[in-house]
């Protein structure tokens, strides 16, 4: 029965640890698995950009503050099977879709912005590798915005991130060129994004002065160490509006209304 249900997980575990979980107890410890949230969408799964639909885990909703295993499949399937067939076809039926040419000024502007960014990465020629900056940011987030968070830690992270970002844009060294496959260049683009995203995650974790789902704030726990919810003050989705790099995003609260069930503290006991 265990082999039938968990055979693939046990096999993965054996490859990593060189221990056979059918014979010896498994060694398990808590770790970050996923970052909640994603692009804001409306009930039709359309983002703030008209015609841009976001489904699956790229969008924010469905599983709330906690994400259990295999939710990626659930979210992708639910959106793809049940929602998009109605909403996307509804949009296509009513939208006026004209011809879009690559000569359009919007396209030209976007293309030149991206080309400039790639040139910028390659021209910094500093002393730090992309990986070393990625690791510095990762460690900061792991320690201060990971499984256990606190006001002090989050404020510390928010003080440090702008410095790492500055270091990245002043002192990163991306080798190679843009004409062939360049994984360091690809990674530089990702890390530049992470430097913004990390700050957003910290803003959000600091603002939510409660513990809820996977968001555990040290200051907000019950006497026996469980998450202490505060539904009176935090029963909303935090939608953060982007206002430019390095600038504080604006919080838009979307209230959650529960008619039949009420949110309650989850017990793992």
């Amino acid at each position: 029965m265990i082999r039938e249900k968990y055979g693939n997980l046990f096999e993965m575990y054996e490859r990593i640890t060189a221990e056979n979980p059918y014979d010896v107890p498994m060694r398990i410890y808590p770790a970050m698995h996923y970052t909640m949230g994603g692009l804001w969408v409306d009930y039709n799964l359309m983002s703030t950009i008209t015609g841009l639909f976001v489904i699956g885990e790229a969008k924010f909703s469905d599983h709330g503050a906690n994400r259990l295993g295999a939710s990626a499949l659930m979210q992708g399937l639910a959106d793809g099977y049940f929602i998009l067939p109605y909403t996307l076809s509804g949009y296509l039926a009513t939208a006026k879709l004209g011809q879009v040419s690559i000569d359009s000024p919007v396209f030209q502007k976007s293309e030149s912005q991206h080309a400039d960014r790639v040139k910028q990465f390659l021209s910094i020629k500093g002393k730090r590798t992309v990986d070393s900056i990625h690791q510095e940011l990762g460690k900061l987030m792991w320690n201060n915005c990971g499984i256990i968070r606190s006001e002090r830690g989050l404020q510390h992270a928010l003080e440090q991130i702008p410095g790492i970002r500055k270091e990245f844009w002043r002192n990163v060294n991306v080798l190679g060129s843009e004409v062939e496959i360049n994984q360091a260049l690809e990674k530089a683009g990702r890390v530049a994004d992470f430097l913004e995203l990390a700050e957003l995650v910290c803003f959000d974790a600091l603002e939510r002065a409660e513990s809820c789902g996977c968001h555990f704030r040290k200051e907000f726990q019950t006497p026996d160490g469980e998450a202490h919810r505060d539904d009176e003050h935090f029963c909303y989705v935090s939608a953060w509006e982007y206002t430019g790099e390095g600038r504080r995003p604006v919080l838009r609260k979307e209230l959650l209304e529960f008619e039949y069930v009420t949110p309650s503290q989850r017990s793992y006991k």
Partner: protein
Amino acid sequence: MHLTLYVWRQKSASLKGKMVRYAADDINPDMSFLEMLDVVNWQLNEKGEEPIAFDHDCREGICGSCGMMINGVAHGPRRATATCQLHMRHFKDGGTIYIEPWRSRAFPVLRDLIVDRGAFDRIIQSGRYISVSTGSAPEANSVLVTKQDSDRAMDAAACIGCGACVAACPNGAASLFTAAKVSHFALLPQGQPERQSRVIRMVEAMDREGFGNCTMHRECEAVCPKSISVDFIARMNREYLRSLLKG
């Protein structure tokens, strides 16, 4: 651990490549093979040399991105193990490891250890869609699948499309991959409406891409990280014949 690596370096598809020697020092035996390459790449990067390019993503053996010839064997010496699941404890300290990209006419090298597996995508695309109703959840018991069929379909669906089967095959055949995909849908009720046209199209696409023919060496099965059985190749051949006769 201290290892000597010989790695295939090739700047682009049109340029000639060669094996280059590297020292992999201070390798922890509990590192995965890809983590070992990460360490080598950090060291190269620090020295101002361009890192070794290789494909990777999930690093837990479920996405099919990674894959390389390790001492001449696709995904290396361990059975049922993708490159990312292979750990350095299985190599001898002080030993030499030869690392090359998948070798197949249908998988041109793009850079270093990265090959273009677009041929697999085109085989999948040729299989087209399946006809199912969307928009609302179907009643759970309206489509019945026997446990036996469900298990067999699941075994076929375990294929992650890494391409090791092609790399290991003396003929460069993509039969195991295509057979897994064909069988997955042929076994399930949801795959029935297009059952005939799908196998014909996918086999034709496979031939068009320049893959070789299967002559049952079973090298594919031996290196497959998901232990896909060559039984599925027999099933694909049967499906193909059935469709030709019915067609």
